[in-house]
């Protein structure tokens, strides 16, 4: 077998492996990593990406992206969302099914896969658990699984009916898929617009108690015990939820969990000015909850950082707090925030594992999973022969969040004007540089 021609060399960085950093240049050809060495001389014509002082990790994988297409193209499209993802260091995102129409039929899955072709990041499609996300009848999970859908969720809402959720878990067994739950008992949440507690009481905004999330986490843990089918918990936000998942894992149950960057950083006190940019679901909670989420990420209770990137057009979002839709942008700020919050406590390999290998495993996008045609293995590791999906991160640089300069069609970032330590410098997708020096190439 002849040597693959080297078309790209990432020079001067430290490769983030499962066990730590290795100073190495990375040679890429044919969409794959073809060599790792102290110093690689790029052949004539090859693209060279300077990674001096940078970490060269596997491309990030987001388990939780709202791309809004089809249906809400004024807020985001697959193209703009994928570009935002690439700029954030992501090489794959899982598109959430709460589109219009929702992703509950083969036709919508095919449309999204078509639209995602050639975009700056791979788009894995998740499907709805129930038809129309209405919580009444099962969506055609088998049909969608045959198209490569591996994650099912009614995200935006939880499956309220426990018997239906149990049936979905039983049905999913053998399909090679995972059900993911947006944990919220809608009766307990009762139209709340923020976390119920000190600030909701003071501001007179209807609140949703932590118990609304925890009640469904507890129910679904019981259903995992009953059915044996795995459940992934989306965007855990309360200390009680983290404790429940920790106990379930200690029991050996097949549960995984994710947390969003905003739940690692922001609290309900942010809502004091009634700015709807801080409205999100699950809501921003207390300092104790933030500390518990971070502790859960550090001790392995929470497996992944997931953005819950939720674009909303200004005309929809800039309205009175209780009328605004929940959600905030996340793709372009996730890694700098995770770095700032987690790297003082976790090595870079652990931070990358939470954002790449572990979410890729949950969504079944790794080298050992069957991938749809045109898609590549995600989640690393960065080694010879692996798909060349890379995130080059400069921990010495900073990220200044300027809403008007984000790639998303929407502007609803809660971090406007903030500066975070670290910045994504380059992103490589299947061997092609899709971001060079923080500029999107697609």
């Amino acid at each position: 077998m002849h040597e693959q021609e080297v078309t790209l060399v990432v020079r001067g960085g430290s490769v983030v492996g499962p066990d730590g950093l290795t100073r190495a240049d990375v040679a890429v050809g044919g969409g794959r990593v073809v060599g790792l060495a102290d110093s690689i001389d790029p052949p004539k014509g090859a693209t060279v990406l300077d990674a001096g002082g940078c970490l060269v990790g596997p491309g990030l994988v987001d388990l939780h992206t709202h791309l809004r297409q089809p249906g809400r193209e004024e807020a985001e499209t697959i193209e703009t969302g994928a570009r935002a993802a690439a700029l954030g260091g992501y090489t794959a995102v899982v598109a959430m099914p709460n589109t219009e129409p929702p992703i509950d039929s083969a036709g919508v899955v095919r449309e999204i896969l078509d639209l995602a072709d050639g975009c700056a990041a791979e788009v894995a499609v998740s499907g709805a658990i129930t038809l129309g996300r209405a919580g009444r009848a099962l969506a055609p999970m088998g049909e969608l699984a045959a198209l490569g859908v591996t994650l099912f969720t009614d995200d935006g809402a939880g499956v309220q009916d426990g018997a239906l959720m149990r049936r979905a878990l039983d049905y999913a067994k053998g399909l090679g898929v995972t059900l993911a739950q947006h944990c919220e008992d809608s009766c307990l949440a009762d139209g709340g617009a923020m976390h119920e507690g000190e600030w909701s009481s003071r501001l007179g905004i209807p609140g949703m108690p932590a118990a609304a999330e925890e009640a469904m986490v507890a129910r679904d843990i019981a259903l995992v015990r009953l059915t044996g089918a795995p459940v992934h918990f989306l965007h855990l936000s309360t200390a009680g939820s983290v404790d429940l998942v920790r106990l379930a894992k200690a029991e050996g149950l097949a549960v995984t969990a994710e947390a969003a960057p905003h739940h690692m950083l922001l609290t309900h006190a942010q809502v004091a000015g009634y700015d709807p940019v801080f409205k999100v679901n699950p809501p921003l909670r207390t300092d104790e909850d933030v500390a518990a989420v971070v502790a859960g990420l550090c001790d392995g209770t929470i497996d992944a950082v997931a953005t819950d990137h939720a674009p909303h057009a200004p005309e929809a979002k800039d309205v009175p707090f209780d009328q605004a839709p929940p959600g905030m942008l996340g793709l372009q700020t996730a890694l700098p925030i995770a770095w700032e919050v987690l790297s003082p406590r976790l090595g870079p390999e652990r931070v990358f594992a939470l954002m790449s290998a572990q979410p890729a495993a949950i969504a079944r996008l790794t080298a050992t999973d069957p991938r749809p045609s045109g898609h590549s293995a995600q989640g690393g590791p960065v080694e010879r022969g692996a798909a060349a999906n890379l995130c080059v991160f400069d921990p010495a640089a900073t990220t200044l969040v300027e809403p008007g300069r984000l790639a998303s069609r929407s502007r609803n970032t809660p971090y406007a004007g903030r500066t975070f330590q670290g910045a994504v410098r380059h992103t490589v997708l299947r061997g092609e540089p899709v971001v060079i020096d923080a500029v999107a190439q697609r």
Partner: protein
Amino acid sequence: MARWVERARVVNAGDGWHEHPTQALLDCFTVRQVLAERKGAAPEELGIACFEGLRVLIVGDVRHSRVARSQVLAYSALGARVTLASPGSLLPPSLEGWPVEVAADFDEALNDADVVSLLRLQAERGSGSFVPSLREYTAGWGLTARRVARLRDDAIVTHPGPMVRGVEIASDVADLPRTVVTQQVANGVAVRMAILFLLLGGELPGVAEVPAVA
């Protein structure tokens, strides 16, 4: 809102469940007026000293009440001691940071209140479902003639209106001299005129100019 509008003075005329500061101001104004009248003094002679240690009991649907939130801040800022009396389901979920006590027993709390501020059960905000029935609410938390008998002779009853006679306040209690609702309504006009006058740049002797929001 004032943050986003340059050089604007914004009057909160009551927002959602949050605040209703002009109502709280007129309530305080009315209470002082009544206290001054009894002493045969002019209200301004009393300053704010008349509120020091005054026992204010706020009764009813505090959870959904913008009036209660502003009253708590206004009365406590003036030195009064504020107590809330409400069924648990109509209290705010958290009272952290609120300068209030919660009455263990509503009837007991009536015994030594100087001001009883009643709140309307806000059926339009779904408060109805927070109690089993209006009948049960009235039985437990309504200011009935029997409960009024517990009040000290000089205790004042206020209500921001509109009153629901027969629910939070018995009809004959609403018409007692100690119930100063019509005085509140009249003062509402004066207090709001004063607020507009001052915020529009008017000057009063002894009143500092209201700073514009930067």
